[in-house]
């Protein structure tokens, strides 16, 4: 099932309620979440489009958080799909990742191992001695 233009317009309004701007963070509207970011989500999670379309169709008149809450109570799975789509579309956006200081699951050097400070933390553990129970 593909989302209609009307579904996307509804989703844009719902996303704006869910993710307003502020605190140095872009709003959902600012990143046009209902466009390319949503397409990216649906390309990897096509299973969301059915419940998402259903939820948007039922939530056309929702105008505030109280209305969204009521729609969510009426269709938990639909709201879950909306939350997953909005959350992932938002947090995959490069400008959002930059704003929260998240480099993504980046590669780092693991060979540094335990530091001298870590070894010092361990000292009391081995000083307390044996823990295992003799069989």
């Amino acid at each position, binding site marked *: 099932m593909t989302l209609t233009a009307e579904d996307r317009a509804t989703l844009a309004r719902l996303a704006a309620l869910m993710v307003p701007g502020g605190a140095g963070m872009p709003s959902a509207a600012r990143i046009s979440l209902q466009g390319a970011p949503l397409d990216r989500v649906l390309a990897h*999670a096509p299973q969301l489009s059915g419940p998402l379309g259903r939820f948007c169709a039922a939530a056309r008149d929702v105008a505030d958080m109280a209305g969204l809450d009521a729609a969510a109570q009426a269709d938990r799975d639909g709201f879950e799909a909306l939350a997953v789509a909005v959350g992932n579309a938002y947090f995959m956006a490069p400008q959002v990742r930059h704003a929260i200081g998240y480099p993504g*699951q980046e*590669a780092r050097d693991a060979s540094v191992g335990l530091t001298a400070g870590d070894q010092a933390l*361990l000292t009391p553990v081995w000083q307390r001695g044996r823990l295992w*129970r003799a*069989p």
Partner: protein
Amino acid sequence: MTDRTEVAIVGSGPSGAVAALELVSAGIGVTVLEQGDWVPAEAFDGARPEWELTQLKQWHPNPNIRGRPEDYPIDTAASDVNPLMFAGVGGAALIYGAHWMRFMPSDFRVRSLDGVAEDWPFGYDDLAPFYAYVEEAMGVSGEDGNPAYPDGAPTPLPALPIGRVGRRAAAGMNRLGWHWWPGSNAIPSRPWRRLQPCVLRGTCGTGCSDGAKATPDRTHWPDALARGARLLTGARVVRIETDAQGRASGVIWVDRQGARHRLAADVVILCANGVGTPRLLLASGLANRSGLVGRRLMMHPFATVAGRFDDDLESWVGPAGQILTSCEFYETDASRGFLRGAKWNCMPAGGPQGFRAGYGNGPLTDAWGPAFHARTRASFGRSFEWGIIGEDLPDPDNRVRLADDLTDSDGLPAPRIAYRVSDNTRRMLDFHVARAREAMQAAGAVEIAETRLIRDCGWHLMGTAVMGADPETSVTDEYGRCHDVPNLHVMDGSTFPTSSGMNPTATIMAVAARSVLNLIDTRAGLEVA
């Protein structure tokens, strides 16, 4: 036309890989049947931004959610816990956390020490050389000298970094005077044989896109294939065949196009895990004189306590993998109101979505709307969890049967699970959750959330073809040889008499190595079909 092999192995996960490599190295012909396919490292999403999205479906550990034809569905309507697994070359290890724990000495002597369940036919000291052997193959990283083990549980490679999360958690444990130790993981901290060094991407649970995590497709299969093993993928075994004397004579399998084949074999080894193995034994009507095939399923009920902190812990950094472990409350203390115990593992919180999943139970307005950014800033990168693996004692009513109204993509009956978490386990988890809250408080958490029993936690599948000396009360002998069918063997976690409170793969592989070496040693006297 009937194909022929000396040994047919069902399943290419860690246990099947150990069995195949040893057999073929001893010059014995092996054919392995695996219902899944090879999964190349590039297929995993760990290094891509979509990682958190695809773990909800494509890389979800529950086969019912993935819904792929190569997995089989599982009827879990009568189960408190969903069994989790993955069909592919390497088995569930492709998506395992690689937490590497030996069982404790007491785990092999539960009846003698605590008067419940059964002792194992062998002990920690018997298994120790086999642990060391498989740990070499798996490139296990850890810190030697862990006082929770008699020999300190040495590992071939030094520990992975514990990072800010580990330091924070460790400081809390030290404040309480409780045991912790840097995590041991089947993840190399240095280049190791065919494994790349870990780059701490922290996506181990959805597959390692960097070729670091030790999985049998890298650690075992290249050598086994080079030495002549034959591995058939997309090959689902339907049943084990027997001859007129009741000995296993081979297997019937079905390919992805639905065509049936017969593979004749002198010996059949089941390595299909604690659900797949009893499923096949039940479908074949074999080895069940004791009535215990499929019974005593143990899955390790799991609880978590997550803490949020004021400072930046970079809690998306891996491994995931266990950063720390604790065995402080592992052993039985009857004054706590339950028997046996649990092991803890400290885990990072993952990306921004993983974190939200952990705290997503509150009202909508707490998570979205004006609160959304404040919540993200206060929480993201600032949290970790203590996971609690509770020892699950065997109960004959916790069992795998064949479903009469659910089939896999080949029309074969799916497994149906009946499984209830016992009162002992519930009391155990309550106690441990309370202690883990204290550990979080001692570490300085400003907010603590707990989940007492996660439904999607059946990572560890054990007990459904129990080993023992008496054919009336066990399915196999101590080497996994079926009492009723002497050339049919079980070499996965199905044979475990008890489950311990430890992640089981180290023990599954060590026991498989012990069993297959015995099979090789005794094969001259083997009865074959």
